[in-house]
């Protein structure tokens, strides 16, 4: 099957990934996370910046499996994260409620030499304060191998 003959990827671009409830980084979890990295949590309530990923991913209200299901992909097939970008406007703090908004940017079917047929999923997530102030924006790209189409 040539690339042109492949069935199209599910049409999911534009699907909202807004969370239904705010995400709060707890001081206790931040301490545990920092300790897992061999580090010590900041005393001033600053959260580890990796919460850009955790807060958006968890706060959007869809698990990785749920996000895959939106793309008609079984998480058991092994999605692989490919890239992340983030731009911060503010420092992340513990105890602060953050709202997540976002959307799927694209799902593109491709053929690769190493993985065979795969869908490349790109989605953007934004973290905001309750007053609407933007905290950060992140874009993640995942590869969803479509072994059944290989």
């Amino acid at each position, binding site marked *: 099957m040539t690339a042109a003959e492949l069935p199209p990827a599910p049409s999911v671009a534009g699907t909202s990934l807004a969370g239904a409830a705010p995400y709060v980084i707890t001081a206790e*979890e931040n301490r*545990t*996370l920092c300790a*897992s*990295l*061999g*580090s010590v949590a900041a005393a001033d309530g600053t959260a*580890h*910046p*990796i919460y850009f*990923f*955790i807060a958006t*991913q*968890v706060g959007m209200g869809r*698990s*990785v499996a749920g996000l895959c299901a939106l793309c008609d992909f079984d*998480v058991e097939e*092994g999605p*692989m*994260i*490919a*890239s*992340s*970008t*983030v*731009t*911060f406007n503010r*420092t992340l703090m513990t105890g602060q409620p953050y709202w997540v908004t976002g959307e799927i940017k694209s799902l593109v079917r491709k053929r690769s030499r190493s993985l065979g047929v795969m869908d490349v999923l790109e989605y953007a997530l934004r973290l905001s304060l309750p007053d609407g102030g933007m905290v950060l924006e992140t874009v993640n790209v995942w590869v969803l191998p479509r072994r059944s189409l290989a």
Partner: protein
Amino acid sequence: MNGAAPLTGAAIAVGTDLPPYSIAAVDPESMKLWAAFLRDPNPIHLDPRAVQAKGLGDKVINQGPANLAYIITMLQRALPGSILVSLEVRYAASVFGGDAVEAGGKITEVAREASGLRIGCEVWLRANDRDPAITGQAVLGLP
């Protein structure tokens, strides 16, 4: 070495290597914590049998965000007081339980702005001297 002095003053210059940050062995118990942080129960991070069943090796696979967190921790230690402005990374390979990892980087840009220094860096994470598991660029602000 994790004991290397952080960069200050004139040492913050283009071409300077960031003091690396090392973990002697990635602890599978830590992956259980990260599964909870990420609300992601994927068994490849928790059970070596699940990794074997998928033909991905015989050790649990560290979560990608945990690998990225090593890089961010390296940046925090290398440039105390700095604020992460942006980050762009590519996840290129897996890190397995028991792997020794080292996060490092190099300063590629230093610009003086009204708010302080803007510092651009290449960053990377290597496991057991294999090809980098993560590569990318970071921009930090130093008031």
